[in-house]
C-alpha cells in the first residue's frame, strides 16, 4: 500500500540517496587507502569520491582539515536532499539533525557557563546541527537567558521541558545534561516514526525502530560502563536510559543496578547480539579492558565500541534492502559518518606512522 503513493513525493529523494549510497567507499577503496604512504597519496585515492571538496586543501593537509572537508561533502549533500524533501520526510530529516543540535547546544551551554564569548563557538558547532536561530543563543549572557532562548528558539524545547530546569544546567555536569537531552530526543524520534500517520506501519517505522532501539541500547550500555568510578549515582544513571529498545525494560533495570562489567554482561544476556559482543570483548579482561579500540597494548580483539559501530553499519546497510522508506536517509547519514571516521582514522595512522593499527576501520561494503 505504502508503495503506491511513496514515489509521488519521495521517489526523487530515495533515488538520490541510493545514488549517494553507491558512492560510498568500498572495501577495495579502503584497502587501497591503507597502502598510502602519505596524506597526499590518500588524497589522491579519495579523488574520485571527494574530488571537488579536497581540491582546496594544501599539499599534505592535516587530518583535521581532511575530516572537515569530507564532512563538508556530507553536509552539502544532506542540505540538498533536505531542500528537496517535503512533508513528513522533511520532518523526518529535521529529526535526524536534532541529534547534532543537542551537541551544539551542549557546547553553547558549556561556553555560557564559563562566560566565554559564545560567538566563537559557532564555528565549532556541527554544521548538521545548525539551525537558523543559533546565533540568537549567543546573545544570552547567563544560563537563565540561554535556557529561555533555547526553549523559544530551538526545536529542542520539548527535550528540555519537564526534565531540565535552568538551575539544572548550572548544577549538573554538562554530560548529564547532554545525555538527558539525547534520551528525550531518542524517545521522541522513536515515538515519531512509530506514531506518525505517514510512517506508522510502514517499512520506515520498522527499520527506524531497529536503528533507534539499537542506538538506545548502545547508549544505555555505554553510560553504564562509563559511569563506573564516577560520581554519577545509580538513580541518576537510570534516568539517562531511554525508555525503549531491546533491553527495555528488564535489561535496563538490570543495567541500572550493575556495579561492574560483569553486571552489565548479565543485563544484556537476554539479547543475543549484545551477549555475543560482550563475550568477544569480555575475553580482553575486566572493566578496564573492553574499552580499547584495537588497543595499543592488546591489539588482538575488537572493542565493544567497535562492535557497536560494526553492528550499526550492518543495520544501516540492511536498511537499503527495503523500499519506500525514509530510513535510507538516516542510514545513509550514518554510513557516511562512519566513512568520514574511517578516512580520518586511516589518515591519522598514516600521519602518526602507526601503520599496524590502520586496519581498525569499519567497512561494510
Amino acid at each position, binding site marked *: 500500500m505504502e508503495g503506491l503513493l511513496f514515489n509521488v513525493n519521495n521517489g526523487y529523494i530515495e533515488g538520490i540517496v541510493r545514488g549517494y549510497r553507491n558512492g560510498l567507499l568500498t572495501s577495495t577503496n579502503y584497502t587501497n587507502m591503507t597502502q598510502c604512504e602519505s596524506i597526499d597519496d590518500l588524497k589522491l585515492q579519495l579523488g574520485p569520491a571527494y574530488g571537488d571538496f579536497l581540491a582546496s586543501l594544501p599539499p599534505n593537509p*592535516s*587530518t*583535521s582539515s581532511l575530516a572537515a572537508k569530507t564532512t563538508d561533502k556530507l553536509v552539502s549533500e544532506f542540505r540538498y536532499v533536505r531542500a528537496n524533501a517535503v512533508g513528513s520526510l522533511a520532518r523526518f530529516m529535521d529529526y535526524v539533525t536534532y541529534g547534532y543540535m543537542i551537541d551544539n547546544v551542549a557546547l553553547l551551554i558549556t561556553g555560557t557557563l564559563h562566560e566565554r564569548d559564545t560567538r566563537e563557538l559557532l564555528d565549532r558547532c556541527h554544521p548538521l546541527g545548525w539551525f537558523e536561530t543559533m546565533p540568537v543563543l549567543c546573545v544570552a549572557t547567563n544560563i537563565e537567558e540561554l535556557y529561555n532562548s533555547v526553549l523559544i528558539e530551538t526545536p529542542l524545547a520539548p527535550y528540555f521541558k519537564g526534565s531540565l530546569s535552568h538551575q539544572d544546567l548550572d548544577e549538573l555536569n554538562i554530560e548529564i545534561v547532554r545525555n538527558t537531552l539525547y534520551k528525550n530526543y531518542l524517545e521522541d524520534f522513536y515515538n515519531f516514526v512509530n506514531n506518525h500517520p505517514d510512517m506508522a506501519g510502514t517499512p520506515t517505522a520498522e527499520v527506524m525502530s531497529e536503528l533507534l532501539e539499537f542506538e538506545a541500547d548502545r547508549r544505555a550500555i555505554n553510560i553504564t560502563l562509563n559511569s563506573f568510578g564516577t560520581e554519577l549515582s545509580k538513580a541518576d544513571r537510570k534516568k539517562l536510559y531511554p525508555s525503549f529498545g531491546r533491553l527495555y525494560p528488564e535489561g535496563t533495570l538490570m543495567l541500572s543496578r550493575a556495579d561492574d562489567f560483569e553486571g552489565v554482561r548479565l543485563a544484556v544476556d537476554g539479547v543475543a547480539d549484545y551477549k555475543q559482543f560482550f563475550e568477544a570483548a569480555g575475553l580482553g579482561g575486566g572493566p578496564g579492558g573492553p574499552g580499547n579500540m584495537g588497543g595499543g597494548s592488546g591489539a588482538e580483539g575488537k572493542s565493544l565500541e567497535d562492535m557497536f559501530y560494526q553492528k550499526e553499519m550492518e543495520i544501516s546497510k540492511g536498511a537499503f534492502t527495503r523500499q519506500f522508506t525514509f530510513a535510507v536517509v538516516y542510514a545513509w547519514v550514518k554510513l557516511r559518518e562512519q566513512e568520514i571516521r574511517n578516512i580520518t582514522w586511516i589518515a591519522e595512522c598514516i*600521519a*602518526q606512522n602507526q601503520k599496524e593499527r590502520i586496519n581498525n576501520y569499519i567497512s561494510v561494503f
Partner: protein
Amino acid sequence: MATQADFKDRQFLAVIGDEDSITGLLLAGIGHVTQPPDNQKNFLVVDNKTETAAIEAAFERFTTERKDIGIVLINQHIADRIRHRIDTYTQAFPTVLEIPSKDHPYDPEKDSVLRRVRRLFGE
C-alpha cells in the same frame, strides 16, 4: 645557582600548543585554573588566528611571572614562531620543553637545547 626556594613551589606544568595537544595534555590532568578572581589558566590554545604577541605574552607569563610552574611545554611549530625568545631563554626554571604536535612531527634540528648539545660537541 637555583636555590631551594626557587623551585619548591613549582608544581604545575604549563602548555602552549594547538588544540589537539592541549586536549590530550589536559586529559592527562595537567590543566589548572587558579582561584578566582584571577582565573589564570596554565594553558594557551594557539591556532592560525592567534597573534604572535599573544604567544609571547603567554610565554612571558609562564616563564617569568608565575612562580608555580616548573615545566613549560610548547609545540615545536609554535616555538618556531617565537624562536628568538626560546633561543635566548637560558634560565633553568621553569624548564622549557619543545614537544611535537600531531600535525608537525618532531624535528630535532630545531630544538634549542639539542642545538646547544650539538654545538657543545662540535657537530
